[in-house]
């Protein structure tokens, strides 16, 4: 029983969805070139809090079915100066959410005359995902630094949940590294330990998950700003050769 996504049935909605789906004949009528699969950031995203900030990381592959559309995507999208979101799921949906929340936070910071809190940003993201939960396919992580609570990581997965966690993973590649997280994460790690943890996790997921690949993009967010680190293919840590 899934409490977060309870089963609901609405006959009218069901009929509406059926009508908007392609009919069987369309597969034969529409030429192959136009039958593309939606672009998704089948991906691996990792975020971890440390004392003084957060470290976030993601792989760099965007795929459409098996075709790799972009080998060096930037999935670390800034929402404000000190708050980033990590995007997984449909590329279009997550880009749209990030744009809307960017605007909302920009407006809010003008109203309040101070940078918005990370929790506020995460809630804006969560609100959109929950409101359009039947239509969006978006799993996002919001992480950043603010004056009140320091470094924070919030997870906003598919149905529209908001929960703060010290460390979290997302995307299709995350399934391969939950065990790695359970084994290797300890609370109160130093900044360098957290960085190595995130990088190793992304590398392990890239190796196993077909929808994750390319290089690793990381960012360190603290009170002094955002430091971005791109680790290219050759420089990724060595993992067991399958």
């Amino acid at each position, binding site marked *: 029983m899934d409490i977060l996504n309870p089963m609901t049935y609405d006959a009218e909605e069901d009929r509406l969805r059926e009508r908007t789906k392609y009919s069987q004949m369309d597969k034969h009528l529409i030429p192959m070139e136009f039958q593309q699969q939606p672009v998704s950031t089948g991906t691996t995203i990792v975020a971890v809090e440390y004392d003084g900030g957060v470290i976030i990381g993601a792989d760099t592959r965007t795929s459409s*079915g098996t*075709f*790799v559309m972009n*080998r060096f995507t930037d999935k670390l999208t800034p929402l404000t100066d000190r708050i980033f979101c990590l995007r997984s799921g449909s590329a279009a949906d997550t880009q749209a959410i990030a744009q809307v929340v960017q605007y909302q936070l920009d407006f809010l910071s003008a109203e309040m005359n101070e940078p918005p809190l990370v929790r506020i940003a995460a809630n804006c993201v969560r609100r959109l995902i929950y409101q359009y939960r039947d239509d969006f396919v978006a799993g996002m992580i919001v992480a950043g630094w603010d004056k009140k609570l320091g470094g924070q990581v919030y997870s906003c997965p598919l149905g529209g949940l908001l929960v703060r966690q010290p460390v979290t993973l997302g995307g299709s590649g995350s399934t391969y590294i939950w065990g790695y997280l359970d084994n290797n994460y300890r609370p109160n790690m130093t900044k360098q330990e957290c960085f190595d943890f995130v990088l190793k996790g992304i590398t392990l997921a890239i190796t196993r998950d*077909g929808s994750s690949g390319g290089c690793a993009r990381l960012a360190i967010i603290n009170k002094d700003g955002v430091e971005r680190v791109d680790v290219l293919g050759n420089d990724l840590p060595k993992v067991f050769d*399958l």
Partner: protein
Amino acid sequence: MGDDIMSYNGGVALAMKGKECVAIACDKRYGVQNRTIATNFTKIFQYGDHCFVALCGLATDVQTVSERLKFRTNLYELREQRKLKPIVLYNMLTNLLYERRFGPYFVYALVAGLDPKTGETFVYDSDNIGAISDNVNLATVGTASDFIFGLGELFFKPNMNPDELFEATSQALLNGVDRDSASGWGAIVYVIEKDKITLRELKGRQD
């Protein structure tokens, strides 16, 4: 990945001609849709001193077709008391595939070979029901075949020597698989000449 049977396991192979030499190459990934299970699953099989077949598609059919073909070629060599020629191997393979015309194996095939006496080169490809092709300069099969075809046409020159052929084949394969999430994780390249066969293992991007 959807429910496309030909990209369920992924994989890719390429064959190119040179001057009195042929090269055949494939990637090493074995995966189930998104997940990579192993990176030592090569898709090239040898059926004679200078006859090679590459099979790409559903992994179970790759194994079955290669084994069934081995059965037939073994019997051929026992009965005829002579070595296989590439054109004979190709015809046996296409016959095997067409026998299953209305319930086909899900593999696309490449045959590459050389006649050691005359130096004549052979590269053929086939779809999964045994359609016969001409003796071509360049052929690719697999999930990334479109990308590798483009690169292969770019790097191909007529009458390449074995080293140039190796470079062209490996660059076409390695760069083509970077655009496909269902193939890659290393590659092997056979360069077949009149007097020797060189096998090289390439370490590409492990993603």
